[in-house]
């Protein structure tokens, strides 16, 4: 049998969520990781711990606090309502916000590691070759950290695909809006529709595996190329 339309919709929502989340994380995470890789601020460890929190925190805990914040009684959701919008809980936008927190360490940490590995020397060389700080960042730091960018993007994307607890807490399970693949699978198993569950699980397994193969293969090649 073939996957149902509802399953395909769930897959589309999942890919869209993972794509948007990865994009936002690359935009926000790059300057954050750059700063964390180079600052000598003595309290940097506090920020590093905050970024790493989603690695150890149960997703339901993260989801619970986000639900409180984004709901109509919460500070962010309340503000949205006051401005004439609707609360962000149980919306796709809410899911994106939750996913950004949830997948943050998977994007920021590889980027920070890649930037730190470059060291100061190539940037000093670029400075003596007339490149301004912004110029140095885009023409030296980013190209030299490219394997870090690939790793960050793939891990961020793949990790968002596998999100379950946070989505359940703040997105609920609204088909066509917030129902993602991991939750659709849970529904199918609850309803004893194992064939559907197989389709979706197998698809997610294959997709995740392919992406990780890409990361490790690229990292191997990058290591071979760089002296």
């Amino acid at each position: 049998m073939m996957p149902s339309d509802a399953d395909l919709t769930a897959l589309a929502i999942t890919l869209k969520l993972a794509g948007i989340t990865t994009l936002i994380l690359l935009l926000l995470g790059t300057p954050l990781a750059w700063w964390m890789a180079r600052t000598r601020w003595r309290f940097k460890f506090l920020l590093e711990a905050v970024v790493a929190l989603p690695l150890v925190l149960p997703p339901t805990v993260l989801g619970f606090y986000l639900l409180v914040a984004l709901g109509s009684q919460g500070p962010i959701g309340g503000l949205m309502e006051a401005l004439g919008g609707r609360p962000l809980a149980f919306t796709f936008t809410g899911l994106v916000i939750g996913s950004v927190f949830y997948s943050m360490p998977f994007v920021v940490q590889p980027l920070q590691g890649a930037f730190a590995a470059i060291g100061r020397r190539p940037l000093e060389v670029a400075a003596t070759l007339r490149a301004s700080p912004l110029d140095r960042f885009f023409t030296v730091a980013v190209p030299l950290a490219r394997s870090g960018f690939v790793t960050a993007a793939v891990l961020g994307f793949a990790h968002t695909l596998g999100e379950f607890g946070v989505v359940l807490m703040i997105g609920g399970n609204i088909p066509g809006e917030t129902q993602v693949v991991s939750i659709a699978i849970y529904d199918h198993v609850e309803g004893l529709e194992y064939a559907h569950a197989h389709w979706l699980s197998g698809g997610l397994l294959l997709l995740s595996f392919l992406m990780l193969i890409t990361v490790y293969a690229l990292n191997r090649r990058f290591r071979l190329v760089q002296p």
Partner: protein
Amino acid sequence: MNIEARFRIDKGDFALDVDLGIPGQGVTALLGPSGCGKTTLLRAIAGLESCRDGFLQVGDMIWQDARRFVPPHQRPLGYVFQEASLFAHLTVRGNLEYGVKRVPKTERKVSVNKAIELLGVGLLLERRTSQLSGGERQRVAIARALAVSPEILLMDEPLAGLDLARKQEIIPYLESLHNELDIPVIYVSHSPDEVARLADHLVLLEAGRIKAAGALGDMLTRLDLPLAHGDDAEALIDAVVAGHDDKYDLTHLDFPGGRFTVTRKALPVGHSARLRVAARDVSLTLEHQSGTSILNIFPATIDEIMPEGIAQVTVRLLAGDVPLLSRVTRKSATLLELEHGKSVYAQAKSVALLS
């Protein structure tokens, strides 16, 4: 054009405190043991080392004073690091062109092609940097620094990481820079041998302070400095090829104190050359010796004498204002009654031609 530099940098376990005037031409070597602050001083000149308490003027450009700090990318300088530090994501050509692209066309005095030619890297242009040998990498790094048409070239021990063969490969290129381009160079080194070959001026650094500074020939023969002591003390003499002796295959080189005769070198008449005369190879006589195999004998005046260990003395001589060193026994010094102002003849048993 001159370079005025005053820096006070305190790094806790190390402090640099210098006030230095460097001539705006030729090669100035910063020499000293590792950890004496040579690299820190060079980085401060480039603006890579931030230092609140400093003043730096290069020609008529003020790069740093109490109010201003020109960031490194706005200083028209070239910098060669100890490790070549080529950009791994660019080819050799990409590395060479990186800086040039950022220099306005009107300020380009050294073309990329000239830099490529001077350092002999023309055949490497399409290579990846990981495919280069250590010597090739450093030549590309030097060409890259030159291609930005710097007003001053800063070199931080560019030969330190290389073995002797690679050093021999690069030194001729460095010497040719000296002859072909009119760019002042500040060259950090801990090797007196490199300095002897490349430098015109010398700044001796010790524990973050300047111990002495001056023209290389003077500095090497100043008896109050360590360079004039020890087994390999030597004098350097800049001379000009005066002619060749076809019958005996010899080359004559003139300097203000007389004429050197050495085995024939393939150098054109008028070519300037640097000669090295070791203190232990110079003996002293009161009369002009005849009946000796030694060809290089010059009248000289004794300037200063200092004991060298317990049995020897080092004598500083002036041959037509050019300082020479002689290492003789204390006994000979007593027998010949050597003293300041006395006229003697210096006999150089062996002379090495450096360039």
